């Protein structure tokens, strides 16, 4: 299925730290797509999660700054208390708008803005979580021709978010965390020439 994907977006909540470590930890440093993540997190959490994941993964992981350029093989985490959005032209944007789906950052906001820019070239992933955020966004991704992946509710620490996503739209893949990195590698185009770790400012 050569679809020429350009980005992966991931939404995750309760149980997310473990899920992200597992999934990202299994991806190689030369994974060719950018990965944008909303992990629900308290407003004063600081940027510890990005640092932790960066240490434990081959990929470069950073907390998103305003106007970051979206680079392949790089993982961007939404900062606490800000929505993360995708701008046309390959840049990220942040917003301090009110909560959406009771969350800020909200998975729906990321998914919907990414779907508007990447259209059919987007892979949306909903992982463990105890709420409903992400289901509307995943539906939008599907409507624009993108691919939807959901963590098997039986495998998830909290099954509500995967279940809500599956109820909202016809999901393409439902699978356990362990198979997910392999699937993403299968969907992603050829590997990039080099690792992006250690590139760019901060």
């Amino acid at each position, binding site marked *: 299925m050569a679809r020429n994907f350009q980005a992966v977006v991931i939404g995750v909540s309760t149980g997310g730290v473990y899920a992200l470590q597992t999934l990202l930890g299994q991806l190689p440093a030369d994974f060719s797509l950018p990965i944008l993540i909303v992990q629900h997190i308290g407003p004063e959490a600081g940027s510890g999660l990005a640092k932790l994941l960066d240490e434990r993964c081959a990929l470069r992981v950073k907390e998103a700054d305003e106007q970051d350029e979206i680079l392949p093989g790089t993982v961007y985490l939404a900062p606490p208390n800000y929505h993360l*959005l995708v701008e046309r032209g390959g840049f990220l944007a942040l917003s301090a708008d009110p909560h959406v789906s009771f969350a800020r950052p909200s998975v729906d*906001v990321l998914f919907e*803005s990414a779907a508007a*820019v990447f259209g059919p070239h987007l892979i949306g992933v909903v992982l463990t979580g105890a709420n409903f955020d992400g289901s509307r966004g995943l539906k939008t991704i599907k409507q624009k021709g993108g691919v939807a992946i959901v963590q098997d509710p039986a495998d998830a620490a909290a099954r509500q978010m995967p279940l809500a996503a599956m109820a909202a739209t016809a999901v393409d893949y439902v699978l356990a965390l362990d198979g997910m990195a392999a699937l993403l590698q299968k969907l992603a185009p050829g590997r990039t020439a080099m690792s992006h770790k250690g590139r760019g400012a901060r």
Partner: protein
Amino acid sequence: MRLDEVEDVEIRLLLEGVQQIYGYDFRDYAAASIKRRLSHWLAESEFATFSQAQARLLRDRGVFESLLRGITVNVTEMFRDPAFFRAVREQVAPFLKTYPFVKIWHAGCATGEEAYSMAILLNEAGMAGRYRIYATDINETVLQKAGEGVMAIKEMQRFTHNYQKAGGTASFADYYTARYDRAILSAALKKDIVFAPHNLAVDGEFGEMNMVLCRNVMIYFKPALKERCLRLFDSSLLPGGFLCLGLKETLERRKMGERYAELLSPLRIYRKRYG
């Protein structure tokens, strides 16, 4: 053309019309956020598409006002980001106190919570009567609300908590009078704040400021408009003055950055160099 692209074209035409008729320029706002807000506004409106809204919008000022309220989102709180206000209290106020009188500009002040927080902080630093705060915003509805200095009482618990985390030790309840579901801020906080309309996309500088705060406003702007704002702040600030940005905004990668030293690294407090 994809549906998204059609909508992007519609939005661009709409914003161009708004600029020509009403003089408000939103064309340099980051597209993703503004699209989200406009879609929200459209869904709540009587119109099915942006093209349909356009005709009425350009003739009916009432429709425009509702759009304006929809586009400028004004969420704010007192002592937002307590660590920032603690740093202002502990590390910036001591510098400000060395001046006989200081002038402070809050650009994009929304309903005024940030400006009132600053007034509390300066009064507690012993600077009462020795400062003036200019608090400006593009949205006159929020400015009016800011000037009234009346807040919902149910917010006060959260604001009190923020105040304490920001290093406040007085009794926060002394700063307002509770009446029914409202909290009326004390006159002592209001008297040295001037609220005024100012549009960062078109209006000019405010002279001789010791401190400029523009937090969570420029994140919504495209790079060119951001540069314009930073130039505006730079020409408004005295040497040795302080520039405070939102926690996810930075002078890194900006031309102007060289002329500023970062006083406190993660808190985005910058000091303009002398000469």
